[in-house]
């Protein structure tokens, strides 16, 4: 067991290194570089000498492997460098945006869990009845609606029916919670619906599987209350795969809100990503990718540990 955990822990590093290599190469293949865009983006006459001087300032004139080594060395010391576009330290650029994306992701998760678990359990209990069909159609529809479109519909409804629009300027939670929630609840709902659909389906299928187990029949035969069977025996055992999808979706949301952020005019990680790619801001793209991928890898690692810990039937080599 501890051997497995150690192996699993060590495996995170080659994956992270792989991500680093891929993004490092990928963004250098995109035509155009940050210096050209920033200095000559408006087709102003800038001499090649000035461009090269600027490139040298960023170390872009050095061989690629050397640039990579410099970046890696910085990463090891948690030094992400400065943005090539704004010149501000990367940490400062990301901090507030991360707080925003993280909060929307957490709120969407809450929406999803509140919807998914009751719906999934009911659907499983009433399998093949109209209740089950309704829940299934509701959740398949959640997978089908683009969440950015749902966002547009939300805004439109609020505007037409209530003559009200959510605040357009971001207020951090710690400054004015009410203002903050008024703005962020809508993207959280739009994203949370899709998210809940994934989780509802997993809850339903996991519950169906567990309900067929012998120990549930035994509990019933004992004359145990249905509610106790559900909460103590069934739900507890069905939660593991559900927890996994919730965790994976959550990790995905940190960087996956790109389009929703666009609709709600939220200045989060997703939007920052789009801007960074448009500006060819190498340091920022690299830092964001490592952040999002790292988050995903760590969450997956924690889920594997949770599996090994919670389910004693799982034995690893």
């Amino acid at each position, binding site marked *: 067991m501890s051997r497995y955990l150690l192996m699993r822990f060590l*495996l995170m590093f*080659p*994956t992270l290194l*792989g*991500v680093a290599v*891929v*993004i490092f190469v*990928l*963004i250098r*293949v*995109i*035509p155009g570089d940050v210096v050209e865009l920033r200095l000559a983006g408006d087709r102003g006459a800038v001499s090649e000498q000035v461009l090269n001087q600027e490139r040298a300032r960023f170390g872009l004139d050095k061989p690629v492997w050397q640039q990579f080594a410099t970046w890696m060395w910085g990463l090891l010391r948690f030094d992400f460098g400065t943005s090539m576009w704004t010149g501000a330290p990367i940490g400062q650029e990301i901090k507030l945006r991360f707080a925003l994306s993280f909060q929307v992701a957490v709120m969407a998760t809450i929406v999803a869990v509140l919807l998914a678990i009751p719906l999934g359990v009911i659907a499983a209990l009433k399998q093949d009845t109209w209740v089950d*069909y309704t829940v*299934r*159609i509701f959740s*398949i*529809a959640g*997978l*089908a*609606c*683009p969440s*950015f*479109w*749902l966002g*547009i*519909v939300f*805004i*439109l409804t609020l*505007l*037409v029916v209530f003559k009200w629009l959510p605040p357009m300027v971001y207020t951090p939670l710690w400054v004015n919670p009410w203002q903050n929630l008024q703005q962020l609840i809508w993207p959280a709902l739009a994203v949370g619906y899709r998210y809940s659909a*994934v989780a509802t*389906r*997993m809850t339903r*299928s996991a519950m169906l599987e567990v309900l067929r187990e012998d120990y549930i029949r035994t509990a019933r035969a004992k004359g145990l209350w249905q509610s106790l069977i559900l909460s103590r025996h069934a739900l507890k055992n069905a939660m593991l*795969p559900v927890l996994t*999808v919730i965790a994976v979706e959550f990790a*995905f949301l940190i*960087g*996956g809100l*790109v*389009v929703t952020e*666009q*609709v709600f005019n939220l200045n989060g990680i*997703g939007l920052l*990503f*789009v801007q960074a*790619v448009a500006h060819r801001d190498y340091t920022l793209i690299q830092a964001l*990718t490592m952040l*999002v*991928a790292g988050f*995903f*890898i760590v969450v*997956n690692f924690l889920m594997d540990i949770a599996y090994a810990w919670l389910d004693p039937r799982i034995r690893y080599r």
Partner: protein
Amino acid sequence: MAVARPVDPLELETPSALGRWAAAAAEFCRQRPLGAIGAGAILFLFVVAALAPVISADDPLAVHFDAMLARPSALHWLGTDAFGRDVLARLIYGSRTALLVGFGSAIVGAALGTILGVGSAYFGGRVDLYLQRLMDVFLSFPLIVLALALVAILGNSVPNVIAAITVPMVPRCALVIRASALSIREMPYVDAARAAGFGHARIILRHMLPNVMAPFLIMLTAFLGQAILLEASLSFLGLGVQEPTAAWGLMLRGAAVDFAEAAPWMAIFPGLAISFAVFAFNLFGDSLRDALDPKLRTQ
């Protein structure tokens, strides 16, 4: 002494393939009404896409400056957009883009994923280890970010959008296929084929691939809906299909949001079309999964 040519057990059975498929389809429709509804909706989309010039009353590219942002009327059933283009006509032609991108990327993604998954499982050892690490790397990349970077590199024509959507699908498919291929590799008939002296290519193509058809089809149908959604998202961001091509995601971009209050038909109908198509593919894919392999969990 003449050496007997090894007999491939697959060559011995020769049932009528067409008959089997027809019977299976009939059985599927009877047992899974929701899936049949999904299949019907998909068929409907195909008919609309194929007969677009016949059904559509207007040219999707025709600009009517006298009828910009016109509300739904007898002339323009679903209204017009900011350039006075007929929304219904653009929806009808948009189905072509959606199906093209959807099927293009789902088929390529699932096929590449299957090849990698089966190869990884069959060869095992080093090959498996390295391929798995590579898949891990691509899995950790946020889907949209990968697509974003690829479109920025390749430029946004329809084939490039298909490529950008395909790349993130490959590792997801390979993961699932590898899991089923691993158990197939241990089957006695694969041992038998190896003992009979068949080469790697033949064992993979004739003995392993046909037996991962079920997860392959499941991944394929699951990808169809996702690809259509992803194309819509990319087009909405301006990184997908380009104007003036009719595409649903593109129709939601720009003016549709700016004029959402004055001309809500511009924002509502394309979203409904996307949802309808993805819903149809998911409904069908879901039932197909239940029918083929209820244990397999896809999103």
